């Protein structure tokens, strides 16, 4: 409908003005169309209004405010005091901040690839027709529905504590390393395990991608005598590369934002640490500590913007790299 209005030539406007009511049928029709178009736009905006209001009040407004706070010393109580780039220089000089960056990067770099490889592997298995296929898909997908919840994080901590499931399994296999939840160096891997366990979401996207690959390509490859591995490498992977790119992008950004599971598994109960010796002090947790426990909202805002910039840079690099390895169908033809 909207397009009909925009395509109406300017001349018709004149006709409408001179003969508003009694003009030719088609001209009156176009005026009515136009009115209807406007009303439809209005209705559209009215329907969107709760969302627009929410976006302006709850997202855009606070973001603008936090951009301002990032350059101020703001403790929530006194008026923000402009300090220029001091927050950023303090941040870079703070060993705890650097530690949180290291922990987060490690989590992203280790967790994301494992999760995606597992998701793709299982998707390949489930793409073939077999009995109970729907059940398996649902079963593998389920963890990603509940994985972000607080209760799962609490259970996770219990599983990785001393004398719990993981510790016992380790001892059964012959090494006594203790539970991961109390180990400053291992606790981050329990979080990696938690994110890997939620591979169901990217798996479903991979499954959708695999369905799009034309079967005749495999048939042709079979005729040419290509093995399964070769087929995967030369047909499947290039054909699903847009889906792979989408998953890499989504999971990377998602990983950078890890908060609640780290906060809960780290059990910030004593002091303002997160995990033993800050073992699970990921970036957002430290941001939270600075903002809400130490009441340093200016510094916390600066940290938030730093994270945004970092994620934007990583995203930009991924987009730049896709030219080299992502094949869209248009290119193929």
């Amino acid at each position, binding site marked *: 409908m909207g397009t009909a209005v925009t395509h109406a030539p300017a001349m018709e406007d004149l006709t409408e003005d001179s003969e508003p009511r009694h003009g030719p049928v088609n001209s009156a029709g176009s005026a009515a169309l136009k009115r209807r178009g406007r009303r439809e736009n209005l209705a559209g905006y009215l*329907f969107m209004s709760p969302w627009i209001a929410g976006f302006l009040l709850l997202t855009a407004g606070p973001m603008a405010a936090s951009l301002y706070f990032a350059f101020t010393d703001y403790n929530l109580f006194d008026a923000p005091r402009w300090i220029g780039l001091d927050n950023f220089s303090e941040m870079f000089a703070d060993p705890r901040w650097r530690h949180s960056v290291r922990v987060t990067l490690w989590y992203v770099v280790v967790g994301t690839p494992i999760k995606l490889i597992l998701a793709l592997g299982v998707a390949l298995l489930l793409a073939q027709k077999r009995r109970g296929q729907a059940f398996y898909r649902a079963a593998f997908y389920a963890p990603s529905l509940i994985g972000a919840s607080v209760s799962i994080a609490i259970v996770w901590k219990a599983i990785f504590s001393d004398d719990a499931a993981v510790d016992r399994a380790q001892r059964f296999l012959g090494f006594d390393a203790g*539970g991961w939840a109390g*180990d400053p160096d291992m606790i981050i891997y329990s979080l990696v395990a938690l994110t890997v366990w939620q591979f169901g979401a990217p798996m479903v996207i991979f499954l959708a991608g695999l369905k799009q690959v034309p079967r005749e390509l495999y048939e042709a490859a079979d005729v040419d005598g290509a093995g399964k591995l070769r087929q995967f490498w030369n047909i499947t992977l290039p054909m699903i590369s847009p889906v792979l790119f989408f998953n890499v992008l989504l999971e990377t950004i998602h990983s950078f934002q890890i908060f609640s599971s780290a906060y809960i598994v780290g059990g*910030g109960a*004593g002091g*303002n640490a997160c995990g033993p010796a800050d073992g699970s002090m990921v970036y957002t947790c430290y941001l939270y500590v600075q903002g*809400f426990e130490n009441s340093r909202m200016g510094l916390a805002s600066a940290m938030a913007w730093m994270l945004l910039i970092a994620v934007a840079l990583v995203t930009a690099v991924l987009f730049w790299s896709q030219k080299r390895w992502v094949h869209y169908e248009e290119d193929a033809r």
Partner: protein
Amino acid sequence: MQQGRNVERRTVLKAAGASLAVAGLGATATACGGGSGSGDGTVTIRYAWWGAQDRAERINRTIALFEKKFPKIKVKTDFQPYLDFWKKFNTQASGGNPPDVFQNAIGFLRKYDAKNVLLDLGEQVKAGNLSMEGFRAGLEKFGEIDGKLLGVPVGSNSMALVIDKPVYTRAGVKPEMGWTWDDFDEAMKKIRDRTGRAGDSGMYGVMYLYDLYLRQNGKAFFTEKGLGFTEADLTDWWTKAEKGVRAGLYADARKVAQIKPKSALSAELAGSEFTWDNFTVRYTSEGKSEYGLAPIPTTDGKKTGQYLGSLMLSASRRTQHPEEVAQFIDFMVHDPEVAKIMGYDRGVPATQAQYDAYRPTDPVNQAIAAYEESLVEAGVLETITPHPAGADICEAAFLRIAEELALGKRSVDDAVKQFFTESKTALGS
């Protein structure tokens, strides 16, 4: 057809308008939430505290009593665990919407006074809505900062060594008033050797205990403006800690980290723990063993450096009902029935009237009373030293960095440096 579609459009527009109206209504509804007065003269005040479910049930019963006696005042309640409480309070207070009356402690008085959050209750005392008469042991002075009455004590407590009684008996250790740090070290060894359990849960990270140790040596953790000890002092304290952790005298920090928020004592990882004496109430409900109180070790055989700590009730400066808030606090600290309900949950009652009204019958509360009385008899109690703004952040950093030391993630020198750096930022010096 055309007609029908127009009607549809109209309905659509109406529906869209309605959804906007609903969103708008939602906004006004939240905006109205702040009001607390109503037509018939009934006033609602908001009361928030930190604590567990057990404390909440007791407090709710005292509020029911209060509302019966003051039918024109309604009390809305809110509670969280300690750390969450302050996060929520910070957010509310900075948004200009703090609870009218709330639980407070000495370490926060200066901090929130500097931020103009606390009401000077002195005015209400003059107006006769709040009595500061009848407090025990000079407690009426506890909430006074620079001549302003910022908090009214509800109870007093003091640091103690909370012990797992059967473990101490099995190890053959009997702590007595005036025992020294050497005796204490010896006791830790005996417990480790004879019961196979660490003697202590992690005394090296307890700011209030280190404060006592410093006071025994003529110093203190805080001065008016900053830290009251040197890097060399802390190096000594944490060097001893590191040795103790390695020797198994103190609980394995890795295990302690996993059982949080449960305490290492009630989780049977250690035979004792330095903390506030009223914590035995909590540990008894948390753990399976029997818990008792032992005196703080001394340097010279006499001085423990102890002082009374206190939980208080404070009012916010923003309250629209200072009179009702003062009446509420007055009721909570003086009414004998309140004492019978609360017991020693927030320490030994602050006023003589409440102290007399509640005579404990169970062994846990009896032990607390006996312990507090023994301190008075021994004459070891001194006056409290100030807690500057930022003291709470220093306390958290002290605990966290000590834990990192115990986990082997920091050397002693590194830990000391880190603590001094962080506390300088927190104390703004």
